[in-house]
């Protein structure tokens, strides 16, 4: 290993007017630390400004010329340094008012003169250790939040993009609702313990708030974006978005008890409930409505009022608050109304200057603060033990977490992997010139590696963390990994230089698959714009459940010799064929008919018929057959009738599938109605694809 790491001594700043005192302290601590000296408060502050990042501890005298110790503390409080530089006060002043005042102003410890060498060394060591750990913990917490933030914001991004796109709302709505939600919750937490709102809980609700309208994905665009009033019927459809959103989240959770999903479910399903019980879909009353949904409901209303929509202009902030307070936009929990009243000024400011990055930082700080408040912070041995335990726990989990952790040294152009990471990737623990390393390039494309290297180099101290998602080829298989890297520098001020980075790859294959399924859940078939199978099924099941004497046909068809079109003219051409078929369906069928692409080249249509089903089926058959450029489109079609062949989706789909198969066996390019003699034959969904 060629990376000569010079162990830098930590710096201690001694601020004392007596040269002798400074000298004694320097003698006591000089073996382990580098001592910076200042002979009065003013010089002390100057030293802090110069070496802010490097000072591990400050020893501060009280009585000094120019600026005394308490004045120094006041400046440090004002400049925010008191939070990052621990201060031990050393003084001959032993009156308890002095000592208390010092503690009140944020000193970590107070040592009275005359001091004992061992005591000073011990207390200095303890304090530095404690702060180092706190910083480390804070780093950990930030990272965890970033991680969380990352995966959630990815989800939010996908969903808000879809909703925004279809809804004509600006993506800011999602951000605004989130900000308002967070502010309301914080105020609420100050007012009452009733809802058990701690920082974690608030952060989670705020994040989940972004999902409140995902159910709108299933609402027809024409209704969503209709200028002017909705008809009763349209409004009824619009209202289904709450329940549908809830269902979507239920489906995503695959039964796992994930708290985030639970909260999101509450919000999606109940953000249109009203405190007086006159909301939808479940007409919950008062505290039956989870607090998460109550708060998001208010945030949603506020942002809707202050935003321009197709059906209304934007109201100014004051007017919006007034309308909510007067109950013009629904009834709310009186305590929440109080919260709104309390935050209204701040709210207006916050929304104007909202920055999500900043809020992450704030979050991290307040969580850390909470952690330490609970931990009864002080340089007590107990706290140190607890912290040590946390550290061991973290290390243990890190080693169990199956993360590929690495360190990159830019001078040597060398990557060092942890033992586990190297084994997992099947490479050495030390890799020189990774971008040109044959084995590394098999795992991750060279361009990707260069891209990462470039991104990290471009990072700066205010924003040192780079994240991304990359597929790694492991054991011949591509798996998605999330990358988190932190760039590292050495030196200070002008003399700062980039030395490399530390980071990790975390397997995120599951997450991405889940995200993928969420997207599927959310979207129509992206190629054709028809329903996907899942949504078509839902729709049909709903129609069937409300059926009285209506009669329907469920038509299933696929394209004959489609595989040849793909093979001969390429997949893009194949896609055009599919789009052409979909377009013909859209052009010729009624808007209320259910049309879906349920598989590769397999389509489903569900139509109401007044009795003349034969004519209708013939018509559909004629519509979809035809010519697309050089390719002749023929279809094999199977039909099941409601109620004759079944009254539930399963039986109908099965029957149509059997009839489709019969058509194929009958020589293709035809349609057949289901009859019971077809029973027992193979299914088109089985391996015989009919196109070999």
């Amino acid at each position, binding site marked *: 290993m060629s990376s000569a790491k010079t162990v830098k001594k930590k710096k201690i700043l001694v601020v004392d007017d*007596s*040269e*002798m*005192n400074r000298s*004694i302290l320097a003698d006591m601590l000089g073996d382990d630390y580098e001592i910076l000296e200042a002979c009065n408060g003013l010089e002390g502050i100057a030293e802090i400004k110069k070496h802010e990042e490097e000072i591990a501890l400050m020893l501060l005298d009280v*009585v000094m010329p120019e600026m005394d110790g308490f004045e120094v503390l006041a400046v440090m409080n004002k400049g925010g340094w008191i939070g990052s530089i621990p201060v031990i006060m050393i003084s*001959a002043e032993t009156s308890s008012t002095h000592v208390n005042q010092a503690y009140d102003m944020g000193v970590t410890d107070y040592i009275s003169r*005359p001091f004992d060498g061992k005591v000073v060394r011990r207390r200095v060591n303890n304090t530095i250790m404690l702060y180092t750990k706190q910083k480390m913990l804070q780093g950990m917490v930030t990272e965890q939040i970033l991680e969380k933030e990352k995966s959630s914001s990815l989800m939010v991004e996908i969903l808000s993009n879809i909703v925004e796109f279809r809804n004509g709302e600006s993506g800011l709505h999602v951000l605004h609702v989130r900000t308002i939600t967070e502010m309301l919750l914080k105020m609420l937490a100050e007012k009452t313990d009733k809802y058990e709102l701690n920082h974690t809980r608030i952060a989670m609700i705020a994040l989940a708030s972004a999902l409140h309208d995902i159910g709108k994905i299933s609402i027809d665009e024409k209704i969503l974006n209709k200028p002017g009033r909705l008809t009763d019927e349209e409004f009824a459809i619009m209202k289904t978005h709450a329940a549908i959103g809830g269902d979507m989240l239920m489906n995503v959770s695959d039964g796992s008890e994930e708290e985030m999903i639970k909260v999101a479910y509450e919000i999606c399903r109940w953000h249109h409930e009203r405190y007086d019980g006159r909301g939808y879909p479940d007409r919950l009353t008062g505290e039956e409505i989870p607090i998460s949904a109550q708060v998001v409901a208010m945030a949603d209303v506020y942002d809707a009022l202050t935003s321009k929509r197709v059906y209304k202009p934007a109201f100014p902030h004051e007017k919006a608050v007034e309308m909510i307070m007067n109950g013009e936009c629904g009834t709310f929990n009186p305590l929440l109304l109080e919260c709104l009243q309390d935050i209204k000024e701040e709210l207006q400011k916050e929304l104007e200057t909202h920055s999500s990055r900043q809020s992450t930082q704030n979050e991290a700080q307040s969580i850390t603060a909470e952690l330490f408040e609970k931990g009864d912070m002080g340089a007590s041995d107990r706290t140190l033990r607890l912290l040590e335990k946390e550290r061991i726990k973290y290390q243990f989990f890190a080693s169990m977490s199956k993360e590929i952790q690495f360190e990159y040294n830019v001078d040597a152009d060398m990557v060092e992997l942890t033992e586990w990471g190297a084994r997992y990737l099947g490479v050495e623990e030390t890799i020189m010139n990774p971008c040109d390393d044959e084995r590394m390039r098999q795992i991750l494309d060279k361009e990707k590696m260069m891209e990462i290297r470039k991104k990290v180099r471009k990072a700066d101290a205010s924003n040192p963390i780079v994240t991304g998602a990359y597929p790694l080829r492991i054991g011949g298989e591509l798996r998605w990994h999330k990358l988190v890297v932190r760039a590292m520098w050495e030196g200070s001020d002008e003399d700062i230089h980039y030395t490399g980075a530390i980071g990790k790859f975390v397997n995120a294959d599951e997450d991405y698959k889940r995200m993928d399924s969420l997207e599927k859940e959310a979207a129509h078939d992206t190629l054709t714009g028809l329903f996907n199978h899942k949504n078509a099924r839902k729709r049909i099941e709903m129609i069937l459940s409300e059926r009285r004497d209506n009669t329907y046909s469920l038509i299933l068809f696929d394209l004959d010799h489609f595989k040849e079109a793909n093979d001969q003219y390429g997949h893009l051409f194949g896609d055009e064929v599919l789009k052409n078929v979909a377009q013909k369906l859209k052009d010729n069928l009624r808007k209320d008919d259910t049309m879906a692409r349920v598989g590769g080249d397999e389509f489903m249509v569900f139509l109401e018929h007044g009795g003349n089903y034969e004519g209708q089926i013939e018509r559909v058959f004629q519509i979809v057959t035809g010519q697309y450029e050089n390719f002749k489109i023929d279809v094999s079609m199977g039909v099941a009738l409601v109620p004759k062949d079944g009254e539930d989706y399963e039986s109908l789909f099965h029957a149509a599938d059997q009839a489709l198969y019969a058509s194929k066996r009958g020589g293709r390019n035809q349609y057949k109605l289901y009859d019971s003699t077809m029973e027992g034959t193979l299914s088109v969904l089985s391996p015989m694809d009919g196109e070999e």
Partner: protein
Amino acid sequence: MNIQEFYASIDPTGNEYAEVMGRLGTERLVNKYLKKMADDKSFENLKKAISSQNYKDAFMASHTIKGICMNLSLKILADSSSALTEELRDNPDTAQVLALFKQVEEDYKVVTDGIRSIE
């Protein structure tokens, strides 16, 4: 006179010697600081400030002497400078200040003469 003998000359109990050794660890360091103390300008500053009735500077100087003496376990001088410091802190009374200073001056002489005679 060696260091132990010096301390014995101002504190027959021997406690102060033990204390300072415990604090600073080696005779080399104790010696170093005793010599520094003898060369320290604080006493001169104190004397000047007292004669010009600049009690703010006097307080600062007296406070420094007290701190140094406490670090070096020079109890006689620590006690007298401490008393002077307290008198100077708020509304000092000129007569009191002069009386207390006289004591500090005496003790200072005893201590520094002793230090200078250390081999």
